[in-house]
């Protein structure tokens, strides 16, 4: 922004000093306010005492020159030119009686203020740019030494949680154990022993059920007794100690000691 912007002083009226040869180059400006600010700088007076009228004239001349040279201008620049032309005429004409609109003087002051504000922030931006930037002018430790973090876990638990966990666990357990506990089985060994006792004092056919009745007092025991007894019976038949017959499906199963004569068969 500090670089002198080349522009042609077509007007010459307000400028006493000789300016560098002027080129109309709108591209160099960041919008109409920027152009205005540059033109204002050319007045070489404090922005507080800038002549807005002169500034308006310079701007309009600049834009006209640009259009004469058939340069493409952004609409912003043209809008500003139109507004400045309006302001210029207001400033030159006698003020109408005080209306609702701001006076020409007030408009001019507001424009001057905007320019001062832009100038000030430019200056601030420049100062910031000139500061010692980290990573450009000043540097942090190039090889920082990492902090070793030791994580120490602290566990939280309340007595309530503890008791609840315990009670729930134990309750599940005793509920599960109740059904398990009652389940008695008549093992194959038990069945075999009982059947061997039977073989001892049997001489003729007898139904297995009749004999087993005494072991089936508990209804729950029925299936386990029947299953084990049948398995044991078949095993003893295979060993030749028993003969077994069943007249039809689902009929009672008859057993009797094997005929010693037929034992080998």
């Amino acid at each position, binding site marked *: 922004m500090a670089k002198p912007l080349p522009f042609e002083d077509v007007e010459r009226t307000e400028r006493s000093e000789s300016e560098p040869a002027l080129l109309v180059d709108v591209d160099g400006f960041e*919008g109409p306010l920027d152009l205005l600010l540059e033109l204002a700088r050319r007045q070489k007076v404090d922005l507080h005492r800038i002549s807005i009228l002169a500034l308006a004239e310079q701007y309009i001349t600049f834009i006209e020159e640009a259009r004469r040279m058939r340069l493409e201008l952004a609409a912003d620049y043209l809008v500003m030119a139109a507004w400045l032309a309006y302001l210029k005429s207001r400033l030159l004409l006698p003020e109408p009686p005080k209306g609702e609109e701001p006076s020409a003087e007030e408009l001019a*002051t507001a424009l001057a203020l905007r320019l001062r*504000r832009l100038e000030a*922030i430019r200056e601030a931006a420049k100062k*910031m740019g000139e500061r010692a930037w980290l990573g450009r*002018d000043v540097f942090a*430790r190039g090889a920082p030494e*990492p*902090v070793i973090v030791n994580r120490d876990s602290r566990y939280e638990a309340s007595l309530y949680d503890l008791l609840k966990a315990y009670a729930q666990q134990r309750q599940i357990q005793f509920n599960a154990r109740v059904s398990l506990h009652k389940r008695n089985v008549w093992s194959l060994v038990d069945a075999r022993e009982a059947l061997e006792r039977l073989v001892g004092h049997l001489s003729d056919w007898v139904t297995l059920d009749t004999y087993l009745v005494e072991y089936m007092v508990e209804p729950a025991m029925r299936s386990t007794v029947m299953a084990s007894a049948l398995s044991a019976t078949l095993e003893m038949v295979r060993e030749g100690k028993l003969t077994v017959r069943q007249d039809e499906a689902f009929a009672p199963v008859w057993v009797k000691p094997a005929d010693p004569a037929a034992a080998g068969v």
Partner: protein
Amino acid sequence: MQEETAEMPDAPEDEISHVPDHGEAMRIAEALLFASASPLGAAELAGRLPEGADVEKILQDLESLYALRGVNLVRVAGKWAFRTASDLSFVLARNVVEQRRLSRAAMETLAIIAYHQPVTRAEIEEIRGVATSKGTVDTLLETGWIRLRGRRKAPGRPVTYGTTPGFLEHFGLDAIEDLPGLEELKGAGFIEGRVPSDFSVPVPSDADALREDEDPLDQDDFLQPLDMHRTEAGEE
């Protein structure tokens, strides 16, 4: 004193027999500050120094001990950090692999955000008298120097921008009030004059707390800040 020593779990036994040794505490602070890539606050330091150590005194002593050296202890963003002396940038600049240069537009936009925060994009544009390209704000967000603060309680609920602690750190500022030329800016009519009333703020503030005229950001703003920004730009 004996009791205090007993309480301390991490102090080497012989080191601190009576009063926490100022010299030893300085060495510890020095080691901590040297080791850290980012600035450390006085409170952070205090938590890691022997109990009873005078943190302020230690920092002052270290500051003056290093004042004339090639490495200085400086205050940035309210914290402390060792940095190479700024007058030596001419030798060190060669270290810089690639320094992102901000465009003039970006630099001005950053300055306006810094000095005027919280500030909306429309307000930035009013000052510069020109539209701000989306790319400029995106670039600044990428640097991590500016952040979305909230939304202005105004029609359209525009996003307000402010600076981050990273901004202070980068520009070597202790606090936002230390911005250069703040007084001149006040004098230039930043406060008084025709400036719209919702715009003029006496001093810039990068405090986390929202101003009266700010709403918190929406939920979506946090999810996709850059996209949100794009949407905002699209609305214009």
